[in-house]
């Protein structure tokens, strides 16, 4: 008689123990040097309101078991949504078979960097209220009230309000003896308002700058973000934006707010310091990196004020966890120190292939049905030592430039050199003071030139955590949540484009 599992009893201890023992015993018997089994339940809820009326709501529970093995220097992965010991035995057979058949074409042996057993680990991220447990009606009412408040403003024609809430339960066990049970909770609320341009035609939008976070439903009540103040300010800011002059392109100095800069960090530092990319393992899809391994310790990434860390430990960080999907304990490490490249994000295979003693814990799979690959840690730019400089102090140092808030459009090339970003709000800076918004702005730069032109970083008082739920990598495609902390910064002489001119208008 085989054990049968359903979503409501996935974390039944007997079932998990049976799946673990079945998988690890079968893998050991098949001659695997490494095996890990991961059972996950990922509950999520997506809600979207258009003009204060519910447009879509869906609850989802993803469930399954994945087994990865290393056998005779070859990797195999297989998975199933059927949680029975019979099916797990079959999954192990498939994983072993995958390792065997792909070995014929392999020219290199795969090794994993060693990791000690962490024994039994029980961990959950920091949150008060599991958002998946909050009644739908309460969520819809809150978003409807926010939307109605915005729609009451004459300038606002339409609104979109959405929340994506995820509660991720993971049970992990490997042959070395680590058994980890972990829960991560995260939320991504967004509200966008649209204003029609009655004079010039066209439209402008403005979205809340509140980041996605590793928090519970209390986040929408104001724990970690001042929603009331942000929503109250939006109509006037949007009215100013829709009436704003179009930007005059050219080279100028930028003061960039953390609500915009996190994404520039993500694209130009986060992905560029993934060692699997730098070694060519993502050449067919996500791309490679200009920060190649031979430049470790010498590459001038940016100015001396640039200190970037990677971690899987920041409270409320979207990549924060205790044990990664290869059984490696969470760590914190330097990537760029005093402007020089000093580290990479690693998983166990890439660590072993490049001579590191140990992975720094960056393996993740977005589903029990996907193989873990190297994914991004919380990659953060560190602030100046004291509370200052403030954002106003940085603005005071600019004669002719822009102050940029909020992320919008983003794109970077496959080696992470050439990037282009837009934003939610662009304020002109004239002689050290803000001088109203401008429209149609994009900034374009090359990674090392941009960070090399970073003259100053703000102090701790300007430091904020931004982030995303939807970082894409790997084939088949996987998405990962990740946070990026940073202060406001001052960057000199960046190329600013007028997007209307770019479209030939």
């Amino acid at each position: 008689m085989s054990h049968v599992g359903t979503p409501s009893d996935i974390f039944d201890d007997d079932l998990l123990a049976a799946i673990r023992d079945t998988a690890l015993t079968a893998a050991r018997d098949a001659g695997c040097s490494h095996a890990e089994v991961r059972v996950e339940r990922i509950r999520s809820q997506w809600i979207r309101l258009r003009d204060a009326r519910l447009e879509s709501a869906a609850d989802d529970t993803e469930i399954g078991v994945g087994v990865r093995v290393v056998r005779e220097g070859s990797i195999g992965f297989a998975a199933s949504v059927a949680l029975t010991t019979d099916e797990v035995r079959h999954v192990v057979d498939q994983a072993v078979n995958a390792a065997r058949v792909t070995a014929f074409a392999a020219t290199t042996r795969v090794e994993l960097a060693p990791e000690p057993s962490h024994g039994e680990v029980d961990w959950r991220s920091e949150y008060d209220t599991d958002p998946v447990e909050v009644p739908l009606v309460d969520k819809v009412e809150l978003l409807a009230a926010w939307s109605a408040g915005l729609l009451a403003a004459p300038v606002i024609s339409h609104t979109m309000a959405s929340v994506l809430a995820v509660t991720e339960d993971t049970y992990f066990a490997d042959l070395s003896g680590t058994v980890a049970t972990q829960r991560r909770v995260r939320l991504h609320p967004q509200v966008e308002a649209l204003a029609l341009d009655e004079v010039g035609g066209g439209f402008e939008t403005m979205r809340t700058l509140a980041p996605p976070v590793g928090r519970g439903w209390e986040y929408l009540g104001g724990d970690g973000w001042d929603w009331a103040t942000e929503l109250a300010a939006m109509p006037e800011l949007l009215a100013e934006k829709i009436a704003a002059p179009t930007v005059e392109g050219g080279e100028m100095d930028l003061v960039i707010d953390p609500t915009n800069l996190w994404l520039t960090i993500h694209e130009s530092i986060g992905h560029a310091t993934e060692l699997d990319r730098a070694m060519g393992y993502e050449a067919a899809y996500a791309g490679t990196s200009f920060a190649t391994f031979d430049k470790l310790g010498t590459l001038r990434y940016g100015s001396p004020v640039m200190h970037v860390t990677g971690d899987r430990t920041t409270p409320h960080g979207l990549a924060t966890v205790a044990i990664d999907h290869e059984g490696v304990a969470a760590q914190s490490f330097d990537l760029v120190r005093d402007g020089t490249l000093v580290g990479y994000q690693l998983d166990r295979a890439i660590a072993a292939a490049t001579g590191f003693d140990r992975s720094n814990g960056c393996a993740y799979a977005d589903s029990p049905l996907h193989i873990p690959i190297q994914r991004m840690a919380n990659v953060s730019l560190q602030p100046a030592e004291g509370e200052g400089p403030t954002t106003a102090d940085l603005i005071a140092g600019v004669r002719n430039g822009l102050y940029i808030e909020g992320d919008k459009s983003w794109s970077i090339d496959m080696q992470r050199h050439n990037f282009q970003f837009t934003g939610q709000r662009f304020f002109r800076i004239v002689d050290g003071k803000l001088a109203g918004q401008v429209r149609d702005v994009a900034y374009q730069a090359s990674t090392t030139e941009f960070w090399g032109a970073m003259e100053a970083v703000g102090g701790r008082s300007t430091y904020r955590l931004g982030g995303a739920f939807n970082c894409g990598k790997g084939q088949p495609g996987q998405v990962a949540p990740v946070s990026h902390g940073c202060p406001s910064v001052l960057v000199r002489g960046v190329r600013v484009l007028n997007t209307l001119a770019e479209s030939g208008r």
Partner: protein
Amino acid sequence: MSPRLRPEAMAPAQAVIDEAMARAKGECAVLVEEISEAEVRFANNTMTTNGVRRDRRVTVVAFAPVDGGTAAGTARAGGTVDIAELVAAAEADAAASPAAEDAFELVEGTVDDDYGLAPGGTDLLVLEGVLSHLGGTFERAEAAERTIAGFAEHQLSTTYLATSSGVRRRHAQGTGALHLVARSAGGARSTWTGSGTADFSDVSVDVAEERLVRQLGWAARRVELPAGRYETILPPAAMADLMAALYFAAAGQDAEDGRTAFSGPNGGTRVGEVLAPLPLRLWSDPRAAGLGCAPFLATGTSGSDVSVFDNGLELEVTDWIESGRLEHLRYHRAGAARSDVPATPPIDNLVLELPGTTQNVEDLVAATGRGLLLTCLWYIREVDPATMLQTGLTRDGVYLVEDGEVVGAVNNFRFNESPVDLLARAVDVSRSERTLGREFGEWLNRAEMPAVRVLDFNMSSVSPAS
């Protein structure tokens, strides 16, 4: 012969549906997706990761009468599902929701003859042809000092849809892709080829390898060019991505709200407007030869152009653009009724063609005095929805054409261009072929596209990436 899914692992899809129907207190739709996948990945002339998986998603959409109309609630779960729990969750969501804006009478029942059949499966055997050739491809690459990276995947999905209004539909389809990248030693030169396929019977690693070798050869001579507007031939893979961006932005309700490039004045749309001087046709058809996809709508989530109330709706050939004129935007039935247009929900394939043209990509090259021939585009993101301006990069091979011949490879560029504007500026179009967009092929695998020549493609800046 394709492998079978192990039937003993879970109750059959039809039984799951019957149980959900029996437990539902009111009207409902039940969707079961049986998914079987196998893939291999490789890089640096060796195998890297792989995977074989069995997935099942059960979606219950419950409809409930509420104040002012009908509400819908959706609950979805994977694997061996507790049906009672799932139905209860969907019904609770429906009861807690306001009347749906997209409410509509459920689609009248149609029963497919093959509804009772079990799902098919796939496994690594489907990729045997790929795997057996890769060893040789890696050996030749090593000898020629180039590295190969890539990915081959195959999915077999079977969708079962049932509604309380009598719909019993089944659709099975295979979806596959092969990507290959070749880079010279040190990575200074690189090139790509990709194909979409239903079953890998029409995919050859040897043919792909020949193409890679030819294109890497073109890059033996390197020419540096500055940013600027260039005469450019966009190959089918690049057009697939640009047209996917256009297709994804073609929701009628969004246009009426005034938030897209298809918005007209005063809450109207641009339907009826001529977008392109050439008689181009952009269309979808679930029965298109070689691009077959589900001929009925099946969704667990409503949006501005799809509705859970439309589950089971027959999908028909739809012209989005015909003779260069914008013909239809994407609407669910409720939105279409409000706007007095036909219901034209999204369909999972896309064809752009210039009817009657016979020339191929090589003919476009041969007719070019001086211009650029691209391989594919990458990291395409919307910059300005009002103009549909997209930014992105050229990737893995920009070739210089002089006097009708490729004479070398050029550096990469960042572009800023609107796909709507490109249709208006197309001067030359080849016949269409099955292709795979590098960026959006993951979401829109089934595409047939032509190569298109424009005289002034906006290369906004140089990218040093190679």
